[in-house]
């Protein structure tokens, strides 16, 4: 297997779902079974991804394979030189793992949907949309440059728009899809400006080339501040896609889409794209940018968790839990815990995908009931759904022996180490509090849905375990939530292969823009060369990721682990006390904490505030502009027309009565004079002589020439 054939395989994986999309979209209506083509193609893509991943991780584990081609050639541009815009494919360990995650979850969602969506009137259209979504997501994953990421980023936005609004007859669904697209666009504008800052300075979009130039000491517009700005602006894209505060509002609404879509897009893949993006630009993040990222992540995680505590819609709880977990990942990247952020992305993709599909299984059997207050006792009716869901819940709560335990524990240790090194203790504190909250609200969900007595007997009686097409994906994802797939030692993720594959990339930012503990003078990690990224290998490109940080993380590893187990245990305990054993009344507690409860239940009124501040105001402004345009601007035009006509009328009157009047008057005077003078025309020569003589005398008298 050569490197170039790996690239061709990756490109093949990318285009398979697109082919499926085109075929099913064009002919799906005519041939009902055509959706199987899409399902088959995604299966092939999955198998190829496994194959590519295997080859990459066995034969080329330390290599980054890049291929570029020219997309636009702008020729010999004055003052820049030959300017081309290149696109390219990059395969590193992150790529192949993402390829596997995306194609696996996508394939499972395809199978699940065959049963879930059966009978829908746009059944084949649905599979076409899944195809274009998978294509877009894969494009982000294999891109070697920011422009290509941006292109597929927006295409993901499109496919998400199509899928959220799939049942567009419902106003809520089309509203939600529009909201998702527009909210994401806000972040994307920031991201695009960030990309423009980099392109303006480096004339390339390629990660490797940008990193190389920064590591050579070339910073945008000659200032570290611009580098920070570029990092934060590109991160804004992630704020949108990964639903971070303040752009988180679209994700809960996106639950209007079919539930398998929520599993695919709004749990496992699309929302993870933001985290993936930040991971990709990680080397150029300055200390200031990282602090901003960490704070946004921390705020998001606790904010969303606080809302998840009180929601009653099973999908809304999962949605807010997703936002919260994404906040975790973003926070981890911000504190430099790169490996664990990405690790959590992967484990979360599996267990959250699992739980969304599980909720889909529940909703399907309850005939589209989503309110947990109408559920209860389902574990007897749906044992497979229950057990797999429980495994997912244990994983997200960070209970030992699960995948979530490994990634979450490392992530929290990362924040703690960061706190120790920089004094920002609030970030780890938030991290640990959220861990407890997560365990609580997730078990609240499990208990309300599966435990206790059925609260709606009628729906309960009709509930049934889902067909195999739905339960097998659940079983696969549940097994992937067990530690053994990641490490042989359930207490030490660092012993596992995952940890070895995904290493923190070397930072390239100038020394004076790094955290104190990231400076290279005393903590140089030899051999971490920038040519990881492009093969340029210039001598001064040797940079470091922090050994100090690694050590600190190692030191707090066990304390963090013990603390997180305790907090998770407490969260679970309280959930059982309140909802299972009913020792504490949830209602009374809510009554006591009424203001807080209302804030949480109403999602901190974010939608209302945004609607009032931004949406209404934009509409006001737009109506004002339209009024201004038709009344003032066009008014002036019409007024000048009226004015011109007025002037023309005056001129016309003047012409008729004054100018022409003068002419007529002259004629009249002449005529009158003629009438008078006619009398003098006697015809007698003598009379004329008298006139002449007298005239001459009078003239002479007047001019007196003598």
């Amino acid at each position: 297997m050569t490197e170039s054939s790996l690239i061709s395989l990756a490109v093949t994986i990318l285009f398979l779902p697109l082919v499926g999309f085109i075929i099913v979209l064009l002919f799906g209506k005519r041939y009902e079974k055509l959706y199987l083509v899409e399902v088959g193609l995604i299966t092939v893509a999955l198998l190829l991804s496994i194959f590519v991943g295997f080859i990459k991780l066995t034969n080329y584990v330390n290599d980054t394979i890049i291929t570029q081609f020219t997309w636009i050639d702008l020729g010999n541009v004055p003052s820049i030189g030959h300017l081309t815009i290149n696109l390219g494919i990059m395969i590193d360990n992150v790529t192949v793992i993402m390829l596997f995650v995306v194609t696996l979850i996508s394939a499972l969602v395809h199978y699940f949907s065959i049963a879930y969506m059966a009978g829908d009137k746009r059944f084949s259209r649905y599979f076409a949309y899944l195809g274009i979504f998978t294509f877009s997501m894969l494009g982000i994953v294999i891109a070697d440059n920011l422009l290509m990421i941006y292109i597929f980023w927006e295409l993901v936005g499109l496919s998400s728009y199509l899928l959220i609004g799939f049942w567009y007859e419902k106003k809520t669904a089309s509203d939600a899809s529009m909201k998702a697209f527009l909210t994401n666009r806000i972040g994307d504008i920031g991201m695009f400006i960030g990309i423009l800052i980099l392109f303006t300075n480096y004339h390339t979009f390629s990660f490797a080339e940008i990193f190389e130039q920064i590591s050579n000491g070339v910073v945008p517009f000659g200032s570290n501040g611009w580098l920070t700005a570029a990092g934060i602006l590109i991160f804004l894209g992630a704020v949108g896609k990964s639903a971070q505060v303040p752009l988180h509002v679209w994700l809960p609404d996106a639950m209007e889409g079919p539930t398998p879509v929520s599993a695919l897009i709004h749990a496992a893949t699309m929302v993870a794209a933001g985290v993936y993006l930040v991971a990709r630009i990680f080397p150029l993040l300055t200390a200031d940018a990282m602090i901003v990222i960490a704070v946004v992540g921390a705020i998001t995680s606790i904010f969303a968790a606080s809302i998840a505590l009180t929601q009653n819609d099973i999908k809304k709880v999962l949605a807010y839990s997703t936002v919260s977990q994404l906040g975790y990942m973003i926070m981890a990247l911000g504190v430099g815990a790169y490996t664990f952020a990405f690790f959590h992305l992967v484990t979360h993709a599996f267990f959250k995908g699992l739980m969304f599909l599980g909720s889909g299984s529940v909703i399907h059997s309850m005939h589209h009931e989503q309110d947990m207050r109408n559920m209860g006792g389902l574990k007897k009716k749906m044992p497979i759904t229950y057990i797999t869901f429980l495994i997912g819940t244990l994983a997200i709560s960070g209970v030992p022996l699960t995948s979530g335990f490994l990634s979450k524990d490392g992530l929290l240790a990362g924040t703690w180490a960061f706190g120790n090194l920089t004094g920002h203790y609030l970030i780890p504190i938030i991290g640990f509090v959220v861990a407890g909250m997560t365990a609580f609200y997730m078990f609240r969900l499990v208990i309300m849905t599966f435990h206790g007595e059925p609260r709606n007997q009628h729906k309960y009686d009709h509930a049934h375990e889902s067909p195999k097409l739905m339960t097998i994906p659940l079983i696969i994802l549940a097994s992937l939530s067990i530690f053994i797939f990641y490490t042989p030692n359930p207490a030490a993720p660092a012993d596992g292969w995952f940890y070895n594959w995904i290493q923190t990339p070397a930072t390239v930012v100038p020394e004076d823009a790094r955290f104190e503990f990231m400076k290279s003078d005393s903590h140089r990690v030899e051999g971490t060369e920038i040519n990881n990224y492009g093969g340029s290998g210039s001598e001064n490109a040797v940079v470091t990721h922090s050994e100090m940080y690694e050590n600190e993380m190692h030191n707090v590893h066990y304390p963090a682990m013990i603390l997180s187990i305790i907090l998770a245990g407490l969260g679970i305990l309280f959930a059982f006390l309140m909802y299972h054993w009913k020792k504490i009344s949830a209602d009374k507690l809510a009554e006591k904490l009424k203001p807080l409860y209302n804030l949480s239940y109403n999602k901190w009124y974010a939608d209302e505030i945004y609607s009032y501040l931004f949406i209404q105001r934009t509409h006001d402004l737009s109506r004002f502009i339209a009024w201004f345009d038709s009344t003032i601007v066009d008014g002036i035009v019409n007024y000048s027309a009226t004015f011109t006509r007025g002037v023309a009328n005056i001129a016309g009157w003047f012409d008729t009565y004054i100018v022409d009047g003068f002419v007529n008057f002259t004629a009249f005077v002449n005529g009158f004079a003629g009438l008078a003078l006619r009398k003098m025309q006697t015809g007698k020569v003598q009379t004329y002589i008298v006139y002449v003589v007298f005239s001459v005398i009078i003239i002479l008298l007047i001019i007196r020439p003598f």
Partner: protein
Amino acid sequence: MQGFPLLTLLIFIPIVGMIVVLLLPKNADNNVRYTTLGVTALQLVLAAVMMLNFDYSAGGIFEASSFQFIEKVRWIEIQNVAFLGTVKIDYFLGVDGLSAPLILLSTIVFFIATLSAWTIKKSPKGFFAMYLLLNAATMGVFVSLDFFLFFVFWEVMLLPMYFLIGIWGGPRKEYAAIKFFIYTMLGGIFMLITMIGLYFSATELLADGTRAYTFNLLALMDQSNYLADGILSASNPENWRMLAYIGLFAAFAVKIPMFPFHTWLPDAHVEAPTPISVVLAGVLLKLGTYGILRISFPIFPDITRELMWYIGLFGVINIVYGALAAMAQKDFKKLIAYSSISHMGYVLLGMASLSSTGLNGAIFQMFNHGTITAMLFLIVGVIYDRAHTRGLNDFGGLANQMPVYTGFVTVAFFAAIGLPGLSGWVSEALVFVGAFGVESIRTLTIIGMLGILLGAGYMLWTLQRVYLGELPDKWKNLKDLDKRELAMLVPLAIITVVLGIFPSIVLDIMTTSVNSLVEFLATTLN
């Protein structure tokens, strides 16, 4: 291709077509239609021949030798006129990377608009005669390299347009036609004044070694041709160049249309029949920005550099103002008209950057706006033909009733929104890359990016109101697209998608010329 009068054919085939149409008997409506279709198809072939023989490495712009398909004949010559010496005007045609993409665009749009005009019932003979005259004049503007000739074609364009709106238009057609006519005419006067000023400021070396006043655009771009005391000579310390530039710019700005000279456009669009809207938005608006690039920029590089911030400012105003105004519209066609204003703002912004990336983006945006907006107006036409209303709030749920149609709507809307993978995004992105790279207009560029958000806002809102949701009972009998409508929409959709993925197909035509224009603008009179 030496000696083959390709450009003359491009201009005069429609004139011949017009004469044929006028000679056809009164009730031979189909013959009239097919004649027009044949003429526009022939033009498409000519454009294809032109592109096949096009030299991608020739710059053009200011250099006569690198223009292509040149035709130069003395049109008017009077010897020994008092004070003036030889008065001469050339029939001077040529193509470079600036005009070639727009000629290509015009032939495509005119062909498709002909199909759209098939349903014109009221005196097709008159309609198509006027339509062909408009076609000829448009081609003439794009290929003229002599200011006088350019001006003649520019003014000739007005006449058919006036009648096409004034006779075949909607309820307020007279108002819209007169407004359009007077507005453009007024701009034309400014152009005429500047043209005469330039004429008396520069001379051209003739073949016999004498010098004569000139309308030759390329001669006017050469600063060494200017008289020391010419009223528009840069070497004259008391020159009137700034004023002349603004006057000329205003003439072009009306056509773009640029805020605050834009209010004729919504009226003209709302009243014009669909094919005329298609041509107006698809081709005629580009004449304004083309004129600026062809005439204002290279003849006044000094003033251009001085005023670039203002050009950028007006571009950004167009983008944001147009988008906000579009959002408040209740008439589908008016919304698209305002979106046109917004999208032409990107062209201005890209031009203001005076950088290769920005100018490539601007010209490519002209091309893409031409195809995408043509699609949008066709889409409005389809629905208006069936429902006889364009009220955005009168519809809903058409996606289920007319799925194929809605598919094209989705492509066109997302192209207008600037979705990557479709052509509109590439040009918008290039505009932003170019404009952001210039420090003085960087802040403006960032404000202009609001347009991306607002554009998505009003487009998706329209999509929701008209196509999503429940279908009202009264529209349960609307039919999906017929073959003729497919023949109009399919090619445009294909162009949109293909150019989104392979933008080089069109960009390569212009890059050499753009680079030489940028070089020229940066070095001349500096």
